[in-house]
């Protein structure tokens, strides 16, 4: 019974699809079809062209920036020995051995009897 109903539905659905095909008549093409199509093509081309131009400009700017940075990094600094010193050397230079507060003898005052 269910199979027969299902088979019946299958046939009716097929008939509906056939009727649908007949009911969907192709609409008439308007006179504006081709002009509108070309307008869309040109609009898309313009968009693509300006996008490419923008992308090219950005790529050029990126290359120029890279070159500028490379040149900047390649230029020698004004104090070349600044980084050639080790930490110990720099420390020694800042605190020479003859500096009195470091190198002088410790003075002990033993005259105070209260101590």
């Amino acid at each position, binding site marked *: 019974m269910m199979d027969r109903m299902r088979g019946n539905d299958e046939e*009716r*659905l097929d008939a509906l699809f056939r009727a649908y095909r007949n009911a*969907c008549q192709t609409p008439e093409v308007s006179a504006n079809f081709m002009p509108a199509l070309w307008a869309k093509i040109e609009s898309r081309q313009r968009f693509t062209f300006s996008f490419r131009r923008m992308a090219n400009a950005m790529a050029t700017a990126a290359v120029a920036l890279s070159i500028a940075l490379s040149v900047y990094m390649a230029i020698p600094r004004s104090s070349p020995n600044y980084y050639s010193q080790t930490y110990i050397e720099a420390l020694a230079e800042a605190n020479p051995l003859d500096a009195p507060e470091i190198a002088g003898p410790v003075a002990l005052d033993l005259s105070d009897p209260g101590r």
Partner: protein
Amino acid sequence: MLVDFDLIKRAQAGDSAAFNEIVLAYRKRIMGTITRLIARPEDVEDVAQEVFLRLYFSLDQLRTAEVFEPWLHRLTTNAAYDYLRKQRRRQEFRMSDLSEQQVVMADASAGGKVEQEEQYNKRIREAVDALLSSVSEADRTLLVMKEVEGFSLKDLEKIYRVNENALKVRLFRARQRVLKAFGQQNQGGTRNKPGE
């Protein structure tokens, strides 16, 4: 094939007149397919223009003549699919309305014969459109290409570039879903032609 490959080659080389000829040769067929895929006659021309727009910008990728038509059909189904996705069916047009519409269809007795015919066709389109909304847009386009357009599985294999067995499974499932919706809603419905 409605055009020869030389014409396509000329269009590929940037010949606008050749491209126009291709459009004119296929326009009617493509618009017919789109009409059945989207069921909205008022938007068919826009979708067809989108198809030819995509054709224009991808024509240079075409290498052999024999793939041209399947490829054009693929552009058509893709454009229709994109349209259907954008125009997600309005919620008020639910399956529950179908029976009522079918009753109205039979009652379309007012007016002249042409008007009745147009009313009938409109109802049929709406009924099938509602039924097809029970499946995804991708399944809908596939089902229409097979059941309404009459493409064979071999043709669809070329169009979709999908294995035939996978297509069969997908079609079967989509049809079952549509059939279920049809069975549920069609108990009291009628699809009589006006005057019958």
